[in-house]
């Protein structure tokens, strides 16, 4: 082969059909890039999988002894659905970190000077992160089973529960993309990482909102993470908390509506923000 052979590229996409075809192909190519990152940095992937498991162990064995479920039942069965919802919420920072490190290094500039589908950078990020979170759910569920968590509902209900978790993750993904685009630099992510914690604990993930002071309990009841945690407790037939509020009575509905509301807000914001990088 000589240096002069140059594979001929297809011409720029000029029809809607060709554009769609390349948008799909480019999105998958970018997803492949995300997987190649895992393969290059297995340590990092393992850490992000192990961290929620470690949290589960801490709450099960170190703090769990002093916890009781207000409605009665095993605390471990109460805790594991909360931890699953927590792991999905923490996906927000994971998405922010990967996106800002790309933006900071200028590689996104290269993508933007190429005739690829503009959506591919975000589609690739979304598919990679969703795959990572699905893997994380499997690991967490396995760890839950190991510490004594069981689901008592049907398989269909269990699958619906995992679907709700991934829906929450999907909403967090677009919130993370938007915040990552706003922050721009990896250093800014730290601020968000600190803020994620109070939001995560101000929920029904670890304890029943009934045990909190009135107004805090109300915030925790309405926390989107609480809705998902409560909904999957119902679907898994695990012990939950019994409140009288509207939010407590309609947890499955809220677990669908909340992520959709978040998506309706953050998806357009993220897309608009990404497009306006050139302004």
């Amino acid at each position, binding site marked *: 082969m000589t240096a002069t052979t140059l594979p001929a*590229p297809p011409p720029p996409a000029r029809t809607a059909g060709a554009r769609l075809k390349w948008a799909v192909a480019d999105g998958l*190519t970018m997803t492949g890039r995300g997987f190649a990152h895992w393969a290059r940095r297995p340590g990092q992937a393992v850490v992000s999988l192990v961290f929620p498991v470690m949290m589960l162990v801490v709450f099960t064995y170190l703090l769990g002894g002093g916890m009781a479920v207000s409605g009665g039942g095993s605390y471990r069965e109460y805790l594991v659905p909360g931890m699953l919802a927590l792991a999905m919420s923490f996906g927000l920072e994971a998405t922010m970190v990967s996106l800002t490190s790309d933006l900071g*290094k200028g590689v996104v500039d290269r993508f933007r000077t190429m005739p690829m589908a503009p959506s591919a950078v975000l589609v690739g990020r979304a598919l990679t992160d969703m795959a990572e979170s699905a893997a994380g759910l499997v690991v967490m569920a396995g760890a839950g089973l190991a510490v004594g968590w069981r689901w008592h509902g049907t398989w269909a209900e269990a699958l619906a529960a995992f679907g709700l978790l991934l829906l929450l993750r999907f909403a967090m993904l677009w919130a993370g993309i938007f915040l990552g685009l706003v922050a721009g630099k990896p250093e800014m992510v730290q601020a968000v990482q600190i803020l994620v914690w109070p939001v995560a604990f101000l929920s029904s993930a670890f304890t029943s909102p009934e045990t909190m002071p009135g107004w805090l309990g109300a915030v925790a009841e309405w926390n989107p993470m609480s809705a998902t945690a409560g909904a999957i407790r119902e679907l898994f037939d695990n012990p939950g908390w019994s409140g009288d509020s509207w939010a407590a009575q309609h947890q499955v509905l809220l677990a669908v509506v909340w992520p959709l509301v978040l998506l309706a807000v953050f998806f357009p914001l993220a897309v608009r923000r990404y497009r306006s990088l050139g302004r």
Partner: protein
Amino acid sequence: MTAILAEGLRKTYGKKGSAKAALAGLDLAVPAGTVHAVLGPNGAGKTTAVRILATLLRPDAGTARVAGRDAVREPDEVRYRIGLLGQHAAVDEVLSGRQNLELFGRLYHLGRAGARQRAAALLAQFGLDDTGGKPVGQYSGGMRRRLDLAASLIMRPQVLFLDEPTTGLDPRGRTEVWQAVRSLVGDGTTVLLTTQYLEEADQLADRVSVVDHGRAVAEGTADELKARLGGDRIDVVVRDADRLDAAAAVIGMAARAGEDAVEVDADARRISAPVADRMAALADTVAGLGAAGVAAEDVSLRRPTLDEVFLHLTGRTQDLNQEQDQDQDRRPERDDGRADGGAAGRARAVAEGSAR
């Protein structure tokens, strides 16, 4: 054919009130197959201009045409015809060099096999085949820049933008990049490069635009620009500040530049003057200083610095502006004392005060 055409480009960053104009009506015209340098200090608007031409940024006003296409209205058509080497390496540091080139090749829709083939050819061309499998994070600065350049060339672009391609590189890395750029020009690629170094523009460019405050203030070949400044300069550092005036007289004669073109920096005991004939000026200076009994610590010939070119072209300084007008036969009469003379006087007083 004009490969790059910018007309009246304007771009303002920030909101009203704190707005900062990066480009204030920039014009550029680069014929196909040539190398054009955009020379200017930090903040002159060089990077903004490149980002607009490379479709990364939308201008507020003006037209930007690259390879015959409108960069604002037909960005995808332009993107098929350009390569960009930005200030920061635009490669994926986690992936290997080969993975990077294959990824970009696939995003250019070369197909899996085509991308692989092109990546291999480029790695060989840029001497990166040995390290093609290592993550880019472990590359040296020069290697990373070469990979970045290789990535810009996947499509054999008609137009290549290089934004300060050698800033931050050591001399070896700089030479590597220069060689790579020169070999491209042979293939008929049009190159627009921005730089802060006159030497780089001199080495690589057919023509140079000097940019300041978002507009082009001068354009020409590197030689033309330097001629406007009075060409090369001679610098002499004398041992004894008392002899500055005597030395200045000698150098004024030797450089044939006229007394008022001689600059005296009393603090550094340095005298500087533009020279037309390098060798004659050097020989006459050395001989003249010897005859006058002035001891010199250093005598050197040098190119004008960007600061000097820039000051002359923008005419920001009254003194420098006058120098620009003067030539060998016709010298404007000076009616004011030179600031430098005053400084020399002060320095002399200091030297006397500290004399034993």
